[in-house]
């Protein structure tokens, strides 16, 4: 710990001890949480949009410019951004945010990942060997991430540590308040079966008691085939699955076809800020998802 503190002191300019941290996050949900924790003591930028597939963001040189003078780089981890973020970090030539440096934060490090494959191989599709990386669909995991971010900010800018702690407390209070509301809104739909486009809603399902019965992709990263879609329709009819969840970065033809064929409600699930029209923050994205699912289920019951 002493060594870490010494390294941080060497790498970070003295003015930063009570200044404004420049933070760059890979995805809008992380950026929003970082913004809530950093408050006025941090300036947060994001490398992607909420309606972009976080697996396939292009490593454009213009994104490198954002990282060149960053003090902190935050990634989702569990290899979600493995196809693009490493090139940006290396291309930034910024020693403060290289993987071994104090300014590099893998937000997944205290998360308990779901779906960790025992013997991962490519016949399983594009699997993540460390586990499913879409853990922020469970709002309870945002508490763990917020604590990690607060600790990291406090370590790098000890002069503002009290501000970060205060912001963390306020964040957790808002989260608790919202969680109570979300739990109440989703309680009637516990046990609801659903189909999603990609296997990215397991954490959300786990939190609110929904049951995933299948995905539109036959395997992670593999586009749907006619045969698989037919099988899925048969499965949905047999199990009376009332809900199809998708995201704006996937093609809409197959989810629409599934909904048409089975009578299931089709809901666009926001993966974070900008993940659906009018959604501007992480809490709003969870709010949108809960409301949209509850509304679709209530409509189905009528």
């Amino acid at each position, binding site marked *: 710990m002493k060594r870490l503190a010494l390294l941080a002191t060497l790498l970070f300019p003295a003015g930063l001890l009570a200044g404004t941290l420049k933070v760059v996050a890979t995805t809008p949900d992380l950026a929003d949480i970082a913004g809530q924790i950093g408050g006025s003591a941090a300036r947060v930028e994001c490398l992607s949009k909420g309606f972009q597939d976080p697996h396939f963001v*292009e*490593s454009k*040189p213009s994104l490198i410019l954002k990282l060149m003078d960053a003090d902190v780089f935050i990634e989702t981890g569990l290899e979600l951004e493995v196809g693009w973020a490493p090139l940006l970090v*290396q291309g930034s030539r910024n020693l403060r945010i290289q993987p071994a440096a104090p300014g590099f934060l893998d937000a997944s490090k205290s998360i308990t990942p779901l779906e960790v494959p025992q013997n991962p191989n490519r016949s399983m599709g594009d699997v993540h060997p460390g586990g499913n990386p879409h853990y922020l669909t469970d709002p309870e995991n945002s508490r763990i991430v917020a604590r990690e971010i607060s600790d990291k900010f406090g370590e790098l800018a000890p002069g503002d540590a009290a501000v970060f702690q205060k912001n963390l407390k306020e964040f957790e209070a808002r989260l608790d308040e919202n969680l109570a509301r979300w739990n109440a809104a989703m309680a009637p739909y516990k046990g609801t079966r659903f189909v999603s486009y990609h296997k990215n809603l397991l954490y959300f399902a786990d939190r609110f008691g929904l049951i995933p019965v299948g995905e539109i992709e036959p395997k992670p990263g593999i586009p749907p085939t006619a045969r698989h879609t037919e099988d899925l329709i048969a499965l949905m009819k047999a199990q009376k699955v009332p809900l199809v969840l998708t995201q704006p970065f996937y093609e809409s033809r197959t989810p629409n076809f599934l909904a048409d064929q089975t009578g299931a409600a089709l809901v666009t699930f926001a993966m974070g800020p900008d993940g659906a029209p009018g959604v501007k923050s992480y809490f709003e994205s969870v709010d949108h998802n809960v409301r949209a699912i509850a509304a679709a289920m209530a409509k189905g019951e009528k």
Partner: protein
Amino acid sequence: MRFHKLRYIFFAGLAAAWAAPAWAAAPANALNPKISLIGDFVGQTGTKNQTDDGFAVREIELGFQAEVDPYAKADVFIGSLDDKGHAPELEEAYVTLPALPYGIQARGGKFRVNFGRLNGTHSHEYPQVDTPLVLTSFLGEEGMDSTGVELSRVFNPFGVYTEATYAVLHDLGDTQTPPNVVDQVKDVNGNIVNVQAAQDEATTPQRGRNFAQVGKVRFYQDITDTTNLDLGLSGAVRRPEGLDQRQLAAVDLTFRWKPLAQGVYHSFTWRSEALYSRNKLVETLDAITQKESQPAATVNARGAYSYVEAQPAMRWRFGVREDYFEDPDNRVASAPHITRAVSPYITFTLTEFNRFRIQYERKRSPENGTENLGFFQWTIVLGPHGAHPF
């Protein structure tokens, strides 16, 4: 007493193991380099002499990549493991220092030189089955690779990404082979025969100016969230005393369109690269008669390629490439030795790790006249997911 001590150690060990932090559970091979293997299987038909027709494993490339320590990263690629009996060849082996003071990045070792647009990437990542003809002609079959040191830095004038790269290299790879240079010598019967001129470093004293120098400036700008322009200006020079001297220049321009929301389904790319070569050839004397067998000459040549590629669906890409080049090795002909070609192609990407491609090429060259070539390519990737270069 001893029993109690052992029992204490046993339970303490058990407790420590149970309470071990997550990193303690990392597998023993966690620090091993990432190993990848890329296989490139190609088929070709329609060549004039038919010697190159048929199927072949063009290359098996073995890659090892790992962090050396907190400050350096190493990349090693062993290539040319083909089915034609060629010996394995060290394609690249370099160490990168990603973040030196003043925002400088350095790499040293053997690497594909950052010259032009495509030369820095491996051939199996090229957008077509064959390498653009001007690159093969000007930079050699394997492209410009060499051993040396490269420094680069990114600037941000007026919000434009500007990357400057400068390298000092042992040579310019295969680009300086003078294939048409011959010496005339007498054989044992007194007959005059042509032999390859002795111009390689093995027979020529090394001088201080033997190093090659390569520089590139790259400008990148987003036009909108979905479109961008990429411009590169490159130059390479090698002026060894007493040997042929080579200067190369390249301009590359790329326009890209890719929607943010459904970028995996649609894209469009237009890329062009133009090269200029200046070969200053030294006078070559006959080994025995000491008479001039090849006069000093300067050969200038130009060449370019341009292609457009559209992706209408997740797995499909359709494109067409046009090639033009003047042969920089043809020093005899007074008129430029021009080759032209046009090559439509289709790429089917089953997954990121498994790709098929077919290509037709109509090529017109002074040596072979008009050729109608057909290509097939199947490329597979084994190993961990790597980042996609932009």
